[in-house]
């Protein structure tokens, strides 16, 4: 093993991550990516009406979710949180059931558009489309955890575009005042659909806003998975110790169009798209694991096969599931009893 490899290898070990851990993390990044690609293929093939997904955001999501307790802690996702939801416990099948709007879709029974995750068993809150509303929800959940002394930590995600919303501001302020145990994640891909960062804010980082609320703020390179893990775990530990919220910004590339309804070529240059592809966390993380000798051509192939099988099986399973019955549309307007 080369000297470089040793130093680099030290990185995840120093962070307390085992080889098994980082390989598993990589598996989730790869799974999320493969699921993502499958969803777009299904959409183009006319099997799905709409796709919105997280290509480019997977690294930071897996890293950020890693310190969280899958059973105890809460997650309040947004539509790009594919990888984060997978780590939290949802399966590829769960997500494809949503894509196909099946009756057994655990998020909404096919009622919501794809990308609107939610799963009570994994304490993933049901999400909606209006950007920003989830931030106050997460803070409320965290407040309840503090009041009820459950020890839960809540993580909430949003794009940098969503930080322009009043709700985002109000949520940060409330969280800071009450030292709520919440990790406030912003996935900054420098685009809100087509609107570039400079038209969204006059600063280049959202994390600088943290000081204005009296909480720590940190920015990490979203393509550096281990760094994302490091900053999140630190924030997680703070939250656990009762020291309150942290604003965490991940600088990420948006690899694809905003959604299947969007053509990013209208507003992004070829050069920009090329630049962005270099920041693909799947590649940067893989390169790291190769450098430290944890991924070889053989093990990579095994991993790829494992992912492929998982996606294939999930697609079949979800595809076979039934659509909801029309007359169920009247259900669950109000509570119907246990």
């Amino acid at each position: 093993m080369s000297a470089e490899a040793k130093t680099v290898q030290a990185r995840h070990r120093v962070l307390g991550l085992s080889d098994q851990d980082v390989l598993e993390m990589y598996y989730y990044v790869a799974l999320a990516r493969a699921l993502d690609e499958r969803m777009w293929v299904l959409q183009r093939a006319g099997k799905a009406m709409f796709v919105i997904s997280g290509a480019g955001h997977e690294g930071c999501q897996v890293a950020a979710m890693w310190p969280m307790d899958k059973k105890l802690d809460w997650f309040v996702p947004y539509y790009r949180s594919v990888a984060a939801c997978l780590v939290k416990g949802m399966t590829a099948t769960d997500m494809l059931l949503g894509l196909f709007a099946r009756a057994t879709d655990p998020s909404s029974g096919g009622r919501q558009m794809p990308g609107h995750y939610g799963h009570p068993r994994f304490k993933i809150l049901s999400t909606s489309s209006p950007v920003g509303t989830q931030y106050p929800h997460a803070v409320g959940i965290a407040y309840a955890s503090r009041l009820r002394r459950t020890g839960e930590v809540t993580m909430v995600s949003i794009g940098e575009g969503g930080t322009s919303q009043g709700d985002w501001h109000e949520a940060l302020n409330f969280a800071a005042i009450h030292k709520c145990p919440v990790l406030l994640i912003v996935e900054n891909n420098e685009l809100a659909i087509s609107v570039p960062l400079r038209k969204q804010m006059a600063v280049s980082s959202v994390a600088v806003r943290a000081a204005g609320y009296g909480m720590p703020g940190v920015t990490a390179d979203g393509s550096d998975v281990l760094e994302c893990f490091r900053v999140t775990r630190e924030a997680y530990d703070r939250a656990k110790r009762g020291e309150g919220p942290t604003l965490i910004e991940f600088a990420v590339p948006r690899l694809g169009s905003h959604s299947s309804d969007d053509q990013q070529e209208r507003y992004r240059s070829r050069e920009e798209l090329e630049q962005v592809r270099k920041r693909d966390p799947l590649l940067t993380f893989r390169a790291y694991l190769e450098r430290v000798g944890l991924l070889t051509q053989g093990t990579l192939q095994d991993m790829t096969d494992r992912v492929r099988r998982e996606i294939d099986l999930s697609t079949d399973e979800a595809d076979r599931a039934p659509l909801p019955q029309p007359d169920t549309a009247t259900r669950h307007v109000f509570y119907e009893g246990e």
Partner: protein
Amino acid sequence: MAEIRYIDAINQAHHEEMARDARVLVLGEDVGRKGGVFGATMGLVEKFGEDRVIDTPLAESSIAGVAIGMAANGLLPIAEFQFADFIHPAFNQIVSEAARMRYRSNGLYGCPVVFRAPYGGSHGTALYHSQSIEAFYAHVPGLKVVAPSTPYDAKGMLKAAIRDPDPVMFLEHKRMYRIVRGEVPDGDYTVPIGPAVVRRQGRDLSLFAYGWMLNESLAAAESVAAEGIDVEVTDVRTLAPLDTDTILTSVAKTNRALIVYEDNLFLGYGAEIAARIAEAAFFDLDAPVTRLAGPDVPGIPFAKPLEEWFSITKDKIATAIRKLAAY
């Protein structure tokens, strides 16, 4: 049983429910030391502490949004909006989130939040401290909307709202707080959300109202009784879901319907009652379904002559009753 004021009934319900269930908590502007600008939360922070009686920042959207999150995680929040006029910034959270949480999650998540808001015009409350907001929210499936008109109902329905597994918009006409008194049991009871109630039996005409307008309408009914007009007055205390049966039963009996509300006429809450009666009681009607409501201007103006011009009083109601009865 004590005769107490409407505001005291509201306050009692808070005290009893918070004592009864540790999951209940209150959040809003000035709900702590000050006890709320109308006194609804008086004495709570002293008894239940700052963690359960939260003086929030001046930010209504987060009052609603944080409450929704709390409810998702096992609490039963009562979110107070200082005036109904200031609930508007929370419109998105209430309509997009609270009302849809259960439906969109296919029944897996609920939203047991009570949104309390003092509404309606009182003396000198002007454009921005007197709005009626029931029409906005009663239109939204997934929300329950109530507007009790007596201290007894105020206490009982607030308790029911707090225990309800779904979001309830609880509207208190602020004119009633100090002037409407009534008998209220000290102990625990609830008044179910849903049923309307006939407050006064009558043969000649059916009048439908809620909140303060119910009180003015009862007074108007008494004043025309001397003239031999016998008005049946129904308290539509739950605006959504609406108890259509009670309404139709009354119309079937009197064959005339008058709907009274303080909000501006156009697409105000009474439009739905009128539309229902017109469709379902067509053959029962001897006269057109009639609405008496606020004028279609953007708010109740401040200056006394203008305020009086706007206000629906028992005299105006009596005039409308006479006209419809004579039809």
